[in-house]
């Protein structure tokens, strides 16, 4: 049963102004993040998923800008907030965990200062002492011993720092955490521990997590639903079991086939044809058609909409468009 969405992204378009012209890093992207779910957002590097993640918090910097769409978070349109109101949302209601824990903590600030600063940025009336105590309690829950809070970031290991990043996101009980490639720089064992922690936190705090990653394995392990992005557009979204069991979009199919599998013996790994497109001059029609083994005439000229294939599973592909898809093919 799909719960009421926490965050509805509607027709979001993000553009980069470059001297060579505007580059759309996300085009007409719509999806929901449901309460207390873990949604995995996957795609190749350069497909716009990190930009999208930043844009959800309006954290994108010039030359990127949001040119259209709505960000309905918990009943409010974030696009309509002033910069100062938005600042109050960041950290307090939506937290973010970055890719590299080695570089996402201020090297000249103690861990405890990171925590108290965050708390006091949102609740200026909290005394330093209260903030410290809250930080210590939170850290304890995340498995950070309180004496380690006095340390500087460079004195901690990567996994520990990623815990600190999480605790920073949770310091004010954020409802949603956007985690941008949080495990990429961790080794396998630390990664597994970290994913356990995420699962636990969801249970304990009722946390919603948007996990942006290029790592299909992580998604399979932890996510409830998956959204697949290709060349700035969303091509498929659905339940993790559905998508892994029967991927619909040819890109998703290729993506899953190119993942190495331990059971896979002898058979060589599938490699997708071609290269991801240049977003400055993206192909017309469906963006995947130059690489698609099933490309039809219609795919060259018309871009498919996201449509339900069964129940909660959506894809943007002419192959599954029962009406227009076939007509288009005939016309061609």
């Amino acid at each position, binding site marked *: 049963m799909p719960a009421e969405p926490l965050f509805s992204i509607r027709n979001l378009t993000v553009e980069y102004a470059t001297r060579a012209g505007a580059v759309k890093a996300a085009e007409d992207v719509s999806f929901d993040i449901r309460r207390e779910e873990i949604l995995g957002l996957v795609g190749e590097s350069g497909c716009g998923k990190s930009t999208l993640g930043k844009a959800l918090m309006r954290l994108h910097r010039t030359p990127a800008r949001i040119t259209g769409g709505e960000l309905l978070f918990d009943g409010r349109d974030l696009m309509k907030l002033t910069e100062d109101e938005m600042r109050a949302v960041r950290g307090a209601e939506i937290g973010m965990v*970055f890719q590299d824990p080695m570089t996402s903590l201020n*090297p000249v600030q103690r861990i405890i200062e990171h925590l108290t600063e965050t708390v006091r940025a949102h609740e200026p009336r909290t005394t330093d002492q209260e903030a410290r105590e809250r930080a210590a309690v939170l850290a304890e829950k995340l498995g950070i011993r309180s004496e380690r809070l006095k340390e500087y970031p*460079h004195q901690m290991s990567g996994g520990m720092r990623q815990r600190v990043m999480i605790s920073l996101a949770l310091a004010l009980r954020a409802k949603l955490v956007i985690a941008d490639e949080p495990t990429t720089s961790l080794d396998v064992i630390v990664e597994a521990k970290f994913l356990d922690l995420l699962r636990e936190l969801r249970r304990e705090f009722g946390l919603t997590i948007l996990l942006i990653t290029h790592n299909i394995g992580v998604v399979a392990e932890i996510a409830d639903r998956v959204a697949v992005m290709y060349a700035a557009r969303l091509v498929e979204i659905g339940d993790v079991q559905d998508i892994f069991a029967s991927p619909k979009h040819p890109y998703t199919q290729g993506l899953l086939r190119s993942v190495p599998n331990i059971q896979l013996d002898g058979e060589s790994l599938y490699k997708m044809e071609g290269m991801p497109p240049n977003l400055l001059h993206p192909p017309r029609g469906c963006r995947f058609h130059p690489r698609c083994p099933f490309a039809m005439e219609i795919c060259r000229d018309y871009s498919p909409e996201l449509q339900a294939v069964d129940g909660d599973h959506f894809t943007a592909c002419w192959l599954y468009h029962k009406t227009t898809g076939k007509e288009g093919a005939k016309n061609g």
Partner: protein
Amino acid sequence: MTPISFILLIIGIPLALMLLYVFIRGSMGLRKYILTRIGLTLPMVFILASLVFFIMRVLPGDPVRSALGPRGTAEQAEHMRQALGLDKPLIVQYGIFLKDIITLNFGNSMVGGHRPIIDEMSERFPATLELIVPASILALAIGIIGGALAASRRKAAADYFLRVYSVVIYSLPIFWFGLMLQLLFGIQLKLLPVAGRIDPIIRTTLEPVTNMYLIDSLISGNWPALGSAVSHLILPTITLGLVLSGVFVRMTRINVIETLQADYIAAARARGIREKVVVYGHALKNAMIPVITLIGLQVAILLAGAVLTETIFNWPGMGGYLVQRISARDYTAVQSVIAMFALLVALISLTVDLIYSLLDPRVRY
């Protein structure tokens, strides 16, 4: 005790205490760092002093002949050579020279009143200090605020203005800039004095303790003297400080821009920290670490600028003394002044490195 050794003590004792404290409290890494730094500073003074010595002795030109002038007789020259120890083998002279530097006893000046050089420097050194300290503070203030402003408004009008400012300031011949200020504020507007450190009449009411007039007048509560000293200080400080600030704006801007692209800045914004705090708290603080090191290297510009500023404003400091001794062909004094400058450079760069190690927790722990 001469004022110069007094001043060296004022600078030296806290520096030594700070070093000792850091050394004892610091980690192994920090201790090693400090030892390495000291290990590098001493050879630097040694190399510079030796360089000056050999330039003075090996390059063609006879100090004694030029000191005596065309009317000097061979006997006089021989006598002077003996008195100055110039008849000894070069290597012995070199040893004596090094010993003089260590003991801060530079002998007597070759010409004029034949006063001990250390006494003459004692009068001059505080003046230089009184000029370069306020000038550095002015330059740092402009440099850090301007650089951070330019970086946070990248590609906006403020950024372009500050970049043009730093290039134009860098291209300003300091001596000309000083003269232009004299022309405008001293001669056209008649607002400020253009020469000297203090009104010579008021000077007589001032009890010299450190020979830094600002401090001396403050200690004794001599307000007219303080006013006069401050008004004399304004133009030289602006001259030297502005010229130095161009480089600082530039360095701060580049480093803050680089820091603003760091992940922890994006992370701080994502936590809802105010933009002002992000730029001036997080980014600037991190950017200052490399900037401090770079500032250490600007000591060269500072002191070279001080020589010219002192000349223009008739400021009786070390720079003015150096130029005056050169015209008098007093090689012993010239050599000593330059050795003194080398000592100063080494001392400042050591202090800067110490501050650096205290600012950066990655060095400290």
